[in-house]
């Protein structure tokens, strides 16, 4: 009996890899992380492999480390595999050459993903695997979730026999994250494929002191070449071994595969050659066109390396006259992309040698498609065939984009579709937080498992972490679904959030007569009038069947909070008719029990209540015959946005990025800054409202606001004469600001409503103590008023930075942040530090950002939160890689210093022209504070004025370099994954360089961006991915390591515990002329906390001693003082109380109570021991003033 299941590609592959291996060396990277996580989870649950033992799963510090551990494990005889993608695969390449060179059987499972070039992309294409094609690994490509599972096993069987290691790849996201109904391989089927004798042979080759051998030798010109050629026969044999494995697999499972899989008519003249998931769509398209009279062929390449030239040519119909080869990668400067080159070479070789059925060289054209998961549709495939049929087909074309610069793109007809009437297609627009995706994954499982239908789900997320829109694409029908592209002809569209209706054309993808379901507070009688005109017109034109439910109300009534997922799921089943209603509801209830049961009965009951309440609240809407609305769809960005923002970024934000042509983009990946201000996402249901009478003007709310939406200004009263009626201000309280007016203003349309500002407000209303000086109020009624106020506020003069005492928070916060409105999570713990950095140093900051959350909310299109001041100055920002941020930033420093040095030399050379006084003033300027910086800028301006028009090479060169005389503030920024793990080696080297760089570690104690994997910063007892049983070891003390250099400024801060301490640390770190590192405790959604109380959590961590506040200042040592100042007092609370306030720790008490008890006790011991050590170090009386290390 066939065993069907509905899972995604990652789980399908991990299902096989886990059972066929003993060791997995892993490191998280999107989109492959899921495979490692599954393996880790199964291991923690004690699931056994084929040989009855639980595999060892080890997380390493980087992919390079993972590759090396895999290499070592293989060399000592364990069946070992790994999972990765993109940059991770690049880091593994050196070891891959070794592993292949030593003929070691293993399978690397790769979710093929774009490599960062002009920009990073987490999405799928083949640029990573193509970069690894010289390693000597065999390369096996699977095209669907079913194949990904099947080929994982075929690769495992083949590698053991061939001894050639395998790279098994499938498309990142499109296959790795597609949820699909597949036939699951049983352990018996796996056993039938794995030859025990070959496993034993692997063991026999293992390094053992009982039969010692030497590998990894160094060889000289005399023998290296010959020895390298000694492995040839293994590569010759490999394709045959793979085909044999495929044949055996077909016998075991009934699913046959070929190295080169031909489909279409046997006498085709035009054939398309392709690898990966695009092949599925191509097959659907070729079948569709052939059914309508075309005579086309398709060749799907499965085994790409070793490329079997003979089999390849034999797989082509002898009638072929023209071939189109599609590559999902770009190799700039090459004579063609890799698969194209292989095809041309193979054909040329075979034809030259003769003896093939193919007698004449067909025309071969190559093209690129689908980079970074660009949707690849039947329309594009048809365009490729149309091109092939042209008299002079384009070669080296692109398809799927509009290239209006080099005109390489093929035009295609977007209306062309191969969607079958038998397949039901549905689209769901939801918010990340409302559970839409989870419910849809669940619906697919229900359909897959409760009916005979095949089902497919694919999920598109936007680039923001807070308030992100998700679009779920579902298909189901009686035949296996090959459509590996987004749904564009939906029978059913559901809009789960009323706010989307204001801005997006929801009906764009609905077919005529389709169903539109809206979640709206307006009932069936009022909904029509609430819709924008374009939406009304589309509903009428498409004769859509309209339904409405107030799911938010039902969710509220049934205690579901904001999670409307179950309710909308019931509506979908009720309206789509895929299952009889009663059956569907029973299946949903059953699945609720299965999904939520482990979280307790209460959650189950709430969900079941929501199911029961739904249908009574679902109403059909009578659609009038004409549109009556006066409301128009909102523009994606504000009307005052600059042209580029409107024409390019705005279109991306509005969901029309697909239609932007090549010419819209700078060829080197450069974008303007200060663009997030134009988005106006209106996410907050409630916003903070200032009560100027209660306010004590402490500025804490301004400091902690993660999105810089609360600002303060201090101005002359004359500036307020034209203030809008509702604009608030009061007398400034600080003595330095006597006579001035103080105003606190909220950017209502940019606020995410996290409420962290209200939580930290220390002021209480004297007559109604529940009120603070800032209180949350509904946004909608305030939106227009506050928009006017905000615009007026922005127009008020900025403070003179020279007059601000920067170490006093209530003054310092008046400085304008140059980091605003990022896409970080609501209540983010990292962004307040970045905002502070830009307030203090943003106008001269050069920032290197390690990949991670901060690079995503800092630099993910369409907009960036990095902003500019009134003079157009602001942070300049770049992200190199995850692992190299420290070195990258050091490069900034070295380069800037060199230019400053050279400029100094030029200045001295030009002293006669410039004047000695100015030369001396510029070269001797200390630039210790804002006033100094201001003066230096004036001097540089004067210098430039003198240089303009001076006709000498030196003067022209100095003019280009003169800005470097103004002190640049170089910042190296990243999370703990970077600083403690993957980038630690570089970070250490940079700390030891002595150069003036500032390192900010946003320490969330976990890999936040990739979804909560353990890092070496993760504290003992915390539950994280790869630490499901609680992290058994303590947190690495990065600060102590940094202190050991003696000349490094080190600070450990937590803004929520002591904000002014944080401020001082930033000021001191920047002022220190050598390396500085600030380790900043950043609460995070991955801690399982209520983000509104994030700052409280920071305080709790400090109060119990879990997080220490300190500053280690080498300048103090130079003055003969103890460099270390311990700035937090001895613990006032027990560590356990803090641990139990965060679910990352607390959940261990629920899952493994005994481990929790032990680890929590040890955590207290850690804290005690660390306090003892630090208080000893801070109390020491240094004997000699020096910069010697602390120990």
């Amino acid at each position, binding site marked *: 009996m066939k065993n069907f299941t509905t899972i995604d590609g990652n789980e399908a592959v991990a299902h096989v890899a886990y059972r066929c291996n003993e060791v997995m060396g892993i490191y998280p990277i*999107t*989109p492959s992380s*899921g495979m490692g*996580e599954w393996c*880790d*989870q199964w291991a*923690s*649950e004690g699931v056994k492999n084929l040989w009855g033992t639980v595999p060892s799963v080890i997380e390493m510090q980087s992919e390079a480390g993972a590759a090396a551990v895999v290499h070592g494990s293989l060399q000592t005889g364990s069946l070992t595999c790994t999972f990765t993608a993109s940059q991770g695969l690049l880091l593994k390449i050196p070891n891959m050459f070794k592993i292949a060179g030593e003929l070691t059987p293993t399978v690397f499972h790769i979710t093929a993903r774009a490599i960062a070039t002009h920009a990073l992309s*987490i999405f799928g294409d083949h640029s990573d695997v193509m970069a690894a094609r010289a390693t000597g690994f065999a390369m096996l490509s699977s095209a669907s979730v079913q194949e990904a599972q099947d080929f994982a096993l075929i690769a495992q069987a083949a590698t053991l026999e061939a001894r050639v290691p395998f790279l098994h790849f499938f498309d990142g*996201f499109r296959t790795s*994250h597609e949820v699909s109904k597949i036939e699951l391989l049983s352990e018996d089927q796996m056993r039938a494929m794995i030859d025990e004798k070959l496993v034993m042979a692997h063991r026999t080759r293992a390094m053992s002191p009982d039969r010692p051998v030497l590998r990894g030798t160094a060889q000289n010109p005399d023998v290296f070449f010959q020895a390298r050629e000694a492995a040839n026969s293994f590569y010759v044999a490999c394709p045959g071994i793979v085909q044999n494995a495929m044949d055996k697999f077909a016998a075991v499972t009934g699913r046959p595969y070929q190295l080169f899989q031909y489909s279409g008519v046997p006498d085709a003249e035009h054939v398309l050659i392709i690898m990966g998931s695009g092949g599925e769509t191509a097959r659907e398209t070729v079948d569709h066109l052939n059914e309508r009279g075309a005579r086309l062929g398709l060749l799907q390449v499965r085994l790409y390396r070793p490329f079997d030239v003979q089999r390849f040519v034999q797989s082509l119909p002898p009638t072929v006259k023209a071939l189109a080869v599609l590559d999902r990668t770009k190799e700039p400067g090459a004579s063609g992309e890799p698969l194209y080159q292989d095809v041309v070479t193979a054909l040329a070789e075979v034809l030259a040698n003769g003896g093939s059925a193919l007698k004449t060289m067909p025309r071969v054209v190559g093209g690129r498609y689908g980079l970074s998961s660009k949707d690849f549709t039947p329309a594009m495939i048809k365009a490729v065939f149309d091109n092939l049929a042209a008299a002079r087909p384009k070669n080296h074309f692109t398809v799927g984009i509009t290239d209006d610069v080099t005109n390489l793109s093929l035009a295609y007809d977007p209306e062309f579709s191969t969607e079958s009437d038998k397949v039901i297609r549905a689209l769901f627009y939801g*918010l*990340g*937080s409302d*559970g*839409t*995706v*989870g419910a849809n994954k669940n619906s697919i499982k229900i359909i897959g498992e409760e009916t005979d239908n095949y089902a497919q789900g694919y*999920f598109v*997320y936007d680039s*923001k*972490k807070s308030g*992100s829109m*998700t679009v779920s694409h579902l298909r189901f029908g009686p035949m296996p679904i090959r459509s590996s592209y987004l749904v564009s002809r939906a029978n059913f569209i559901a809009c789960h959030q009323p706010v989307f209706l204001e801005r997006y054309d929801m009906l764009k993808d609905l077919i005529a007569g389709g169903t539109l379901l809206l979640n709206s507070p307006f009932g069936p009688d009022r909904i029509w009038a609430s819709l924008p005109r374009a939406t009304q017109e589309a509903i009428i034109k498409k004769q859509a069947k309209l339904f409405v439910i107030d799911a938010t109300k039902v969710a509220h009534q049934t*205690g579901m*909070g904001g*999670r409307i997922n179950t309710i909308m799921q019931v509506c979908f089943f009720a309206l789509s008719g895929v299952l009889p209603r009663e059956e569907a509801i029973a299946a949903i209830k059953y699945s609720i029990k299965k999904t*939520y049961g*482990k*979280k*307790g*009965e*209460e*959650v189950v009951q*709430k969900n079941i209540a929501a199911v029961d309440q739904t249908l009574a609240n679902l109403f059909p809407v009578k659609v009038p015959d004409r549109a009556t609305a006066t409301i128009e769809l909102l523009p994606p960005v504000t009307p005052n946005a600059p042209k580029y923002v409107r024409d390019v970024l705005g279109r991306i934000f509005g969901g029309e990025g697909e239609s932007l042509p090549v010419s819209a983009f700078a060829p080197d990946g450069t974008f303007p800054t200060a663009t997030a201000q134009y988005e106006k996402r209106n996410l907050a249901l409630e916003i903070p409202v200032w009560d100027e009478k209660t306010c004590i003007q402490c500025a804490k709310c301004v400091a902690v606001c993660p999105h810089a939406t609360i600002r303060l200004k201090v101005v002359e009263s004359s500036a307020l004469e034209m203030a809008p009626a509702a604009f608030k201000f009061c007398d400034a309280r600080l003595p330095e600001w006597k006579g001035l007016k103080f105003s606190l203003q909220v950017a209502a349309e940019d606020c995410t409503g996290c409420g962290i500002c209200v939580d930290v407000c220390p002021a*209480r209303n004297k007559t109604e*103590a529940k009120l603070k000086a800032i209180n949350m109020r509904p946004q909608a009624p305030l939106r227009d008023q506050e928009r006017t106020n905000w615009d007026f506020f922005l127009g008020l003069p900025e403070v003179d930075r020279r007059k601000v005492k920067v170490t006093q928070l209530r003054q310092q916060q008046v400085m304008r942040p140059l980091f605003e409105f990022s896409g970080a*999570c609501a209540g983010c713990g990292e962004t307040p530090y970045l905002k502070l950095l830009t307030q203090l140093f943003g106008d001269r900051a050069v920032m290197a950002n390690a990949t991670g959350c901060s690079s995503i909310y800092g630099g993910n299109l369409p907009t960036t939160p990095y902003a500019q001041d009134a003079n157009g100055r602001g942070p300049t920002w770049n992200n190199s890689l995850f692992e190299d941020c420290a070195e990258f930033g050091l490069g900034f420093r070295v380069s800037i210093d060199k230019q400053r040095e050279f400029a100094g030399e030029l200045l001295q050379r030009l002293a006669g022209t410039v004047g000695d006084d100015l030369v001396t003033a510029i070269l001797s300027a200390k630039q210790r504070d804002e006033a100094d910086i201001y003066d230096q800028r004036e001097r540089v301006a004067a210098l430039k004025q003198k240089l303009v028009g001076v006709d000498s090479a030196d003067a022209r060169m100095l003019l280009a370099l003169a800005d470097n005389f103004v002190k640049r503030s170089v910042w190296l920024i990243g999370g703990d994954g970077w600083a403690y793990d993957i980038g630690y080696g570089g970070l250490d080297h940079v700390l030891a360089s002595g150069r003036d760089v500032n390192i900010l570690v946003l320490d969330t104690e976990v890999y*936040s*961006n*990739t*979804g*909560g994997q353990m890092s070496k910063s993760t504290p003992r007892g915390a*539950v*994280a*991915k*790869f*630490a*499901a049983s609680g992290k058994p070891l303590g947190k690495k003390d990065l600060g102590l390591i940094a202190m050991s250099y003696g000349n490094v400024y080190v600070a450990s801060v937590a803004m929520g515990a002591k904000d002014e301490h944080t401020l001082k640390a930033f000021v001191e770190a920047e002022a220190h002329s050598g390396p500085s590192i600030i380790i900043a405790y950043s609460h995070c*959604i*991955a801690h*399982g*906390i209520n*983000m509104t109380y994030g700052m409280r959590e920071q305080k709790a961590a400090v109060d119990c001693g879990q997080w220490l506040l300190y500053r280690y200042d080498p300048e103090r040592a130079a003055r003969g003082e103890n460099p270390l100042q311990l700035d937090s007092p001895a613990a006032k609370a027990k560590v356990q109380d803090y641990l139990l306030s965060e*679910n*990352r720790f607390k*959940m261990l008490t*629920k*899952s493994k*109570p005994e481990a929790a008890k032990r680890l929590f006790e040890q955590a207290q011991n850690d804290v005690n021991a660390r306090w003892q050590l630090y208080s000893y170090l801070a109390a020491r009386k240094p004997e000699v003033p020096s910069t010697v290390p602390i120990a």
Partner: protein
Amino acid sequence: MDLSTTYLGLKLRSPLVPSASPMTRELADLKRAEDAGAGAVVLPSVFEEQLRRESAELDLALTQGTESFAEALSYFPQLGEFRLGPEDYLEYIVKAKAGLKIPVIASLNGTSAGGWTDYAKKIQQAGADALELNIYYIPTDSHLTALDVENTYLDILKAVKGAVNIPVAVKLSPFFSSMANMAHKLDMAGADALVLFNRFYQPDIDLETLEVESSLLLSTPQARRLPLRWVAILHGRIHASLAATSGIHTAQDVLKILMAGADVTMLCSVLFRKGMPHIAALEQEMRQWMTEHEYESVAQLKGSLSQKNCPDPSAFERAQYMRVISTYKAV
């Protein structure tokens, strides 16, 4: 000397019983209590809110931020079964029963009838000898009548009694218009014992933070007078056993309450201050006093000074109040 007493139909070696509190949270503490001679132990209360909230909180923590961003579709590993508070508690009962010879009384704390009767069943299945129902209810709704409030108590009791066979004690507050009538109704509704009285955590105001806070205040010996009065009044008038709690710190306190008519005395604050082994000291002092005063058994002195048996029954009523006032004035 025979210190034994009968409470909830259970024969106890002594009337000294540690009440439901964090003091009884660890098995080791229960063993210490037994070793010190406790007659029984009452385990800490499992709260109705705990049953509801833990599940909801965990769900929230595990789902927030998930399925929103392509790189981080979740933030935690998918763990198998979670042992939420209630499961832990059931296991604790099992362990306590296995580790102790004295009776183990479980405690459920709640305010509404729905939801946790099933849990009472599980407590019984886990092997508890009896169940103490701690009905903690502050009626703040001005539409709620005294009868509504009383019926809430009775409904909870009936629901739980309907679900279990083990004896059920009701721990209640003194804030009833007609305490005697309420006790009678609970008695009729099947309460096997009344525990007098619940000490509510009373709110306080923090002048610095301007926040209202609840903190635990340990009882003072004066608190003993309230239960003493009602134990004395109810002794012999209802079928249910009587337990006294609040302000019982010394052997003298124990003796007085027993004489008023309590079957057991619940100890909490004194054990916080002096530890479980202090039970043995209390027992020793009791024995000494009883020896000196030639009492042979607890049964003998139990209720000897209840309202029914004491020389001046009005001493427990208003008349006594008048006398106290006038005496006070005279002084």
